[in-house]
């Protein structure tokens, strides 16, 4: 994957955001901003990224709008990657920090399980293992130096880092546990659970095998080099050296991949932004694409901006805050509201009459009422009552899902409220434009002295440093 590409599309989107910002000055309602995006006919469509998005919110605080509105952006947006199929944006009355979710994430990524597996360490014919290479501490020279020990050392270090990022020991424990579950004879009594278990098992096993194969390959090339030297085979030696160099280059990419190996990292996600105090400034953007959640989760927290407000005629310095939440969109339908048959009332419209054999009508319109919420859905277009019922059910389902999403968002908004008002601990980054210029991530201490570039969307450095900082600490 190309980070430059990522950066470029990020920038492009920010550029777009800037254009929109100037348009916004003329608009009187925050929601019309979203409408503008929808209407924007130009080809240079981009996406709104959180680091910029929330400034709109705080800036246009006085254009508050309490109505709830959902806007849909046309597909084809570039976000983290250029092949992102679609992006939707919602402006909901109360959307925000999803603490429950964050806790769940932290929980699921931390399996405190005992027991481990004494895995067979692969080694070369003379007993050299990857651990052994690391222990030898061979100097890593520049790639251009054709030194096998240097290549091997660099690759071994990468493998070490990759394992750390994959939380290797926990991964093995988890794999063992999943294998045990899979062997239970009653596993398929609960097919949904069974499916989940076997999917996770398959994915973890795949990751483990890939790393093992990489280790194996390293050791085989070393064997070949030793053999070539014994046999005085210069061709074989240079071929094997070349192969090692290739591995060394590949390993950098694998390191990066390992940063995004969390269970939900590959999901699409909602990015929710809420500005500091006063007015409504909540917006939800849907981001579709490979690893959307994996990247965006790095932005979760409170962002702080210090600058001379362009809206203050006295040119005073202002500090504003915005909270960002990121919610993964699970593909397995687990976000769907479970509907109880017994909560439904199904009605058929008809103009009185005895019905049954008395009547011949092609009208089989059906209305379904969800009794607990009063939400209804109707369908009359289908040719059978059964089909009308099925279509009405689908509509009812999406209405209830939407309602649930709003409800959760409202619930989470309480957290945000207290968070933005009092909790400084959750502040993750500050953007200072005055009196000095700097953007600093408070979690990693990563800093950049050119805030404009960051506000333009150059946040890859922040994301990567955060991801590696959170994963590369030593496994407990």
């Amino acid at each position, binding site marked *: 994957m190309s980070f430059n590409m990522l950066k470029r599309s990020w920038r492009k989107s920010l550029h777009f955001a800037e254009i929109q910002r100037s348009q916004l000055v003329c608009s009187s309602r925050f929601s019309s901003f979203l409408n503008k995006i929808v209407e924007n006919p130009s080809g240079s469509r981009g996406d709104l990224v959180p680091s910029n998005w929330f400034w709109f919110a705080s800036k246009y605080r006085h254009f508050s709008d309490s109505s709830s509105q959902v806007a849909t952006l046309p597909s084809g947006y570039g976000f983290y990657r250029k092949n992102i199929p679609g992006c939707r944006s919602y402006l909901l009355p109360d959307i925000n920090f999803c603490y429950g979710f964050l806790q769940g994430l932290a929980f699921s990524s931390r399996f405190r399980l005992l027991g481990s597996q004494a895995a067979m360490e692969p080694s070369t014919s003379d007993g050299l293992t990857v651990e052994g290479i690391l222990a030898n501490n061979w100097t890593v020279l520049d790639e251009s130096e054709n030194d096998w020990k240097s290549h091997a050392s660099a690759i071994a270090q990468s493998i070490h880092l990759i394992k750390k990022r994959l939380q290797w020991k926990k991964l093995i424990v988890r794999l063992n546990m999943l294998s045990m579950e899979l062997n239970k004879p009653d596993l398929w009594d609960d097919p949904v659970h069974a499916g989940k278990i076997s999917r996770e098992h398959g994915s973890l096993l795949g990751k483990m095998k890939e790393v093992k194969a990489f280790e194996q390959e390293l050791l085989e090339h070393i064997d070949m080099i030793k053999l070539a030297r014994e046999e005085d085979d210069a061709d074989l030696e240079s071929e094997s050296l070349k192969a090692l160099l290739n591995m060394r280059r590949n390993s950098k990419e694998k390191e990066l991949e390992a940063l995004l190996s969390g269970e939900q990292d590959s999901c699409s996600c909602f990015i929710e932004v809420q500005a500091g105090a006063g007015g409504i400034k909540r917006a939800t953007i849907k981001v579709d694409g490979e690893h959307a959640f994996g990247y965006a989760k790095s932005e979760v927290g409170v962002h702080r901006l210090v600058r001379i407000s362009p809206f203050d005629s006295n040119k005073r310095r202002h500090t504003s805050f915005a909270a960002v939440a990121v919610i993964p969109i699970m593909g397995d339908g687990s976000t769907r509201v479970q509907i109880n048959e017994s909560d439904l009332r*199904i*009605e*058929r419209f*008809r*103009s*009185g*009459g*005895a*019905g*049954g*054999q*008395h*009547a*011949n*009508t*092609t*009208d*089989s319109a*059906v209305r379904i009422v969800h009794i607990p919420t009063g939400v209804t859905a109707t369908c009359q*277009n*289908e*040719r*059978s*009552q*059964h*089909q009308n019922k099925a279509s009405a059910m689908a509509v009812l389902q999406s209405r209830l899902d939407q309602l649930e999403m709003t409800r959760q968002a409202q619930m989470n908004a309480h957290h945000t409220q207290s968070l933005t008002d009092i909790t400084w601990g959750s502040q993750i980054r500050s953007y200072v434009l005055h009196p000095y210029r700097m953007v600093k991530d408070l979690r990693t201490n990563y800093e950049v002295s050119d805030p404009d570039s960051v506000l333009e969307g150059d946040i890859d450095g922040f994301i990567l440093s955060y991801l590696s900082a959170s994963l590369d600490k030593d496994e407990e």
Partner: protein
Amino acid sequence: MKLSFSSAYFASNFPVFLKSSVVTSLYRPVSSSSQSCLPTCLKPQVPLFLKPPIYSTALSDLKSWHDWAKSLATSIGSTFVESDNGPDSSLLCRELKWLMEDAVEDQSVLTQMGNVNNQTVIMRADVEELYSLWKQRIEDRRPFQYLVGCEHWKDLVLSVQDGVLIPRPETEHIIDLVADVLSKNEGLRQGVWADLGTGSGAIAIAIGRMLGKCGRVIATDFSPVAVAVAAYNVQRYCLQDVVQLKQGSWFEPLKNVEGKLAGLVSNPPYIPSKDITGLQAEVGRHEPRVALDGGINGMDDLFHLCNGAASMLKPGGFFAFETNGEQQCKHLVDYLENHTSGSFCGLKIEPDFAGIQRFVTGFRQ
């Protein structure tokens, strides 16, 4: 109603004779009806949507027909509704759309109706036929389902034709009731079921698709046309090994499974004879009277079925009957409770989606 009641109990054993005037005009007398004789002479009609697309028409001609048909439908307004609770023009327009769907092979043409050019359209019926069909619909009140030769019922598309009752949306609910019972009692899934008076085969086919490996449905009808059409539908859903068709009167073709049935369902004729003349034109003028006329109070066949159910069902076996409404449901439950010497338990009355008490269900003790 109450007065004729007790006599109906006795008469119920001979329902066909009570209606013989109707029956003989259409079918052979009961005595000569034979079992499991699949009529080979009767060739069921192929529904429009399954006919080969061998006609080609200029789009402009199709559009002229459509405009004509639409204005005809619109001109009806609520005339039919007022005269006999028939369709209004918006429903007729919806039917017109479905007729086009069934007749035109390439559906995308339907969206281009606006810009008429020299394009030709491939169709399953020629435009002349469409004119005549729509005329029949409006002028003769011929049911839409007979025009297109099919009815969408549950998730099935069933072939229907003159002489076979068009399955009703209400009846779909019998399938839900059976599904519910099957989900609670796996044993019934493997047993033999019977659908008496199967008509197009609707109930039998829907149940056949829910049964287990060993489950079977015996579907009977007195009408040879119904049996032929039901056989065609069974074949379309590849259920020949599951649904067995038998021609004959009610339980007559079922003698060899006496006391063995896991389930018995029926939507027998239940309209009181005196109401037949006032029926909606689509029903009264076009659907077979033997499928509708339930005798003086409409319950001749229902009582006959209740009596038979006691001897045909095995202990724990389930039954479900459709009725004319609340009154018939109550009479039936009363009869089952007090006049079948405690053969049944778990008796229930179930409403349809319009809120009319429509079904009586229960179990053999």
